[in-house]
């Protein structure tokens, strides 16, 4: 079973996303990590198969954490979480840094699972 690390500073988003991902029994959820620093630590210790990484977080934001995770493992499969509606420089920046896809908030469970299954 693939391990998915959820990274989001929001309690409600972390819970909602974890429920969607774990709900079908296809994935095991670890975390949630609450910021980029925690995400990097958990990536090193738990080696998740997939990381769902929020863009906008305190302490260390998503793009900065993404850079570090990709430096640790250039094959890391990271999906960014954003409420930016799929536009803006941050979106393309994340893809350039190595993110595989982007999930928009508010979540649609089918869409989230589809993105994860295709990784």
């Amino acid at each position: 079973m693939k391990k998915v690390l959820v990274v989001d500073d929001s309690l409600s988003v972390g819970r909602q996303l974890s429920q969607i991902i774990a709900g079908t029994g296809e994935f095991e959820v670890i975390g949630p990590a609450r910021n980029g620093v925690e995400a990097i630590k958990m990536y090193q210790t738990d080696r998740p198969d997939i990381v769902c990484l929020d863009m906008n977080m305190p302490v260390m934001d998503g793009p900065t954490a993404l850079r570090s995770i990709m430096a640790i493992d250039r094959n890391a499969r990271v999906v960014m979480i954003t409420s930016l509606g799929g536009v803006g420089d941050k979106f393309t920046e994340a893809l350039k840094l190595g993110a595989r896809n982007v999930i928009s908030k508010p979540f649609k469970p089918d869409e989230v699972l589809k993105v994860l299954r295709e990784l």
Partner: protein
Amino acid sequence: MPVKFFGQFLLEKGIVTREALLKAVGPQDSTNLKFGETARSMGLITDADIDRVHDAQRSEDLPFGDMCVKLGILTADQLKEVLAKQKAGHLFIGEALIKTGAINANDLPKYLEAFKADQAPYVIDKVAIPAGVPDAALWEAAADLTYKMLSRVAGFTVRPGQCVLTQHLDANDTVVSIGMTGSVKARYLFSVSTNVRTLIARAMLNTDDVSKEQEDMLNDTVMELANVICGHIEAKASQMGKEIEISPPEVLTDGVNGIPVPTGGKGLLFPLHVAEGRIEAGIFLEQV
């Protein structure tokens, strides 16, 4: 709260009882279909089309019908047909109250006239930003996105009040702040009463019962809704050629005492009238 819904007006004037009003809302819910539901009932679109439109609306702010045309799901003529059917089949609360016997059909015009007169000072078609405020188009879009996200994400029916300059955001039960930097230096404030927070939590956590949730979780749902709103404002700003960065949301612990506009700054207040409680949104600009 001066801005009201017609049903609320009738209730406050003692023309109908709460029970009669609730009884009339039932037929309204079952009769008044959304655009997508109406189009589906006409055999013009499928559930998969509805999903496609919702997906596309995340990256472009277009009404459902217009997005259908843009995606080639409906023609412009079909869009008009659906809108006409939706309009023709709409059951207004006044009609529903007649149907359920709460009011007399002959009295409805006079009640509507009285309601119109009562509401005339508060009705707005467009958010008008007071003169002299920089980046007015962006703040107009911010207000519009706030109304839309409250409706789409949290299911509220919002009637916007007119934007006014203010020196402070009034005290409220939960006040969330999100900083904006880059092309603008501002703070987005979003305040809700406890009852509204409960409804937001239900919508955000996708559950009917949030009575056992901790304060942190309930506040977090309000922060997340404000975050989604500001994310869309950031995206809109980008489309308008302005790059802004938003900070993570925080609950202001001094929100119960009201929030003053920073010295030298300007405060925009966007009153939001909902039947369920009190919501206000504000934009505080630094050093204007």
